[in-house]
């Protein structure tokens, strides 16, 4: 009887765990929690838990974890231990699934400290970039649009494709005409909204602080960026914020760029806004700092994926 009861509790623990993981994947909530490279892994885990739970429930114990009277596990024979497992593993997960708002509040974002330097972020992902031109919800700059001139991290091994060729076998950066040609051809890769604005992410602007090719590409362009509104020192400036995840939301850190407006704006703290304007690059010691000069600040819906990566 005790073994049977323990088996029920342990089986439910595994099945419940698998159910939560699969449900998060199917309904898309997992997108707010994990980097894409871990999402299929999470689904596989969910399926694995369900398979293990089903086998645990319906099959007879075929191997014993006890040798000469000494047992590695106590949970197969102890209903109390089984209840404890259910209470510690699955119940909190189900409670979290019901109660979580799938986001951090302002206090958590401020507490984590802003990433000020793009060199602290992983290099932009070429594969991800390649899909950006067709998907405006993705971080925006395709690598085809860029040269390999990470001017402030020259020692970094480049993951960028070769510089565009000018047709004579020389790289575009080797002469002025080639440079112009490169800039023109690069601009066509920039993803654009229906009104012609260049659609960027906060991370793109942050990267542009350390990548001259991006600065050249963005200068003079009207861009639009979506993020959360964080008030600044006065009503005519604020920061537009996104959370950047390395692996999961637990390691997410906020990235932001300052925005200057022509007049005061009335936006609720941490609400989602679309900022339309032009980026300006200012020298800041050895580095370059980007400031977005906003022409419009509009309330907007959260993007499908609130996290950048």
């Amino acid at each position, binding site marked *: 009887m005790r073994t049977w009861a323990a088996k029920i509790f*342990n089986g439910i*623990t*595994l099945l419940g765990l698998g159910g939560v993981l699969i449900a*998060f994947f199917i309904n898309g909530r*997992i997108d707010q*929690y*994990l980097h894409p490279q*871990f999402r299929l892994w999470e689904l*596989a*885990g969910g399926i*694995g*838990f369900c*398979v293990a739970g089903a*086998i*645990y429930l319906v099959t007879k*114990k*075929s*191997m*014993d974890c006890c*040798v*000469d009277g*000494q047992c*590695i*596990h106590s*949970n197969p024979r102890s209903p109390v231990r089984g209840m*404890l*497992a259910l209470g*510690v*593993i699955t119940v*909190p*997960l189900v*409670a*979290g*699934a019901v109660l*979580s*708002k*799938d*986001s*951090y*509040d302002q*206090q958590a974002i401020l*507490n984590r*400290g802003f990433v000020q*330097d793009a*060199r*602290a972020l*992983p*290099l932009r992902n070429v594969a991800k970039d390649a899909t950006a031109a067709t998907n405006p919800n993705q971080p925006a700059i395709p690598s085809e649009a860029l040269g390999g001139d*990470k001017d402030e*991290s020259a020692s*970094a*091994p480049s*993951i960028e494709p070769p510089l565009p060729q000018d047709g004579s076998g020389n790289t575009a950066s080797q002469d002025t005409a080639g440079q112009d040609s490169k800039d023109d051809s690069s601009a066509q890769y920039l993803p654009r909204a229906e009104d012609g604005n260049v659609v960027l992410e906060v991370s793109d602007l942050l990267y542009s602080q350390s990548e001259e090719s991006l600065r050249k590409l963005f200068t003079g362009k009207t861009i639009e960026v979506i993020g959360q509104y964080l008030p600044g020192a006065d009503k005519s400036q604020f920061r537009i914020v996104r959370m950047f995840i*390395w*692996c*999961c*939301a*637990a*390691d*997410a850190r906020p990235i932001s760029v300052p925005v200057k407006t022509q007049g005061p704006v009335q936006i609720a703290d941490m609400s989602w806004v679309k900022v339309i304007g032009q980026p300006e690059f200012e020298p800041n010691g050895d580095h370059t700092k980007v400031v977005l000069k906003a022409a419009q600040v509009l309330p907007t819906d959260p993007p499908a994926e609130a996290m950048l990566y």
Partner: protein
Amino acid sequence: MNWFHFSWQNFWFSFLALAFEGLPFVLVGSLISGFIAAFVPSRVITRFLPKNRFLATLVSGLLGLIFPVCECGVVPVVRRLLDKGLPFSCGLTYMLASPIVNPLVAISTYAAFRGQHPELNTAVRLVGGYLVAVVVGLSVSRLDPARLLGGKAIPNRSRRRAALSIAAMPDAPDASRDVSAMQRVIGAIQLASDDFIDTAIYFMIGAAVASVFNTAVDQRIMLPLASSPVLSVIAMMLIAGILTLCSTSDAFIAATFTTFPIPARMAFLIFGPMFDFKLLFLYSGLLKKRTVIALGVGLFIIVGVLCIAFLPAIYANLGS
């Protein structure tokens, strides 16, 4: 309390993220453990190791290269290996080294430190982790495992004697009897499930504690420590202990602490996978509480000495 501001919203978000990322790793570790129990005769495991205890410990630190298990899943694997007859010093060395000395971590560390001498930092992390694990393993090699292991993890006497002589081990009666492959697979999954439940209880407690620290405690109280070579190393080890990150992903976080000197970030990357909040609980399923505490203190000192006394000179000589 200005330094503590708890919010359920932040807690649940961080807690679920850690659970979703970590639990599949725990499952994989448990499955490896279950399949080892069901399919791998102990003589195969012991065959990997030299008979000499010193050399066996050295080799155990490299087993992660062919058994790449992260720290979330390594405890059930080690527990099973101990049950299979692996000497405690070798098991401990493998448990500490495997989350660092494995190909996945090498790749992620290299990627995370792009532009920051990735080859050097990856090598320092792997070699440093290996050396620390071996030092700890050798330190316990002459101690009686029964004094260090928790009750459920102590191999029985006949097995323990054989294990310490690194001889081929008799397998569990069920493992050696004539059963079909399918029965063995089912048995492996059943054992893996029990392993998982044992391990996941501690993981979830650790994830909950880490989530509270991650979201409720003001992170700025630690930042002034960054300017001191000694305090920065200590602070980064404490942060690693609190953040409870997985070793396959922690390099991306460490690389962002650019205000901290590189030896301090290496302390984060070596100490964290060996001892953090979730491991405090996970290790409690394998080791006696006083052993866990002694292990934590010992690792803190060894990694601290390595990163304060030796790494700055190494980086200076190698031009980083």
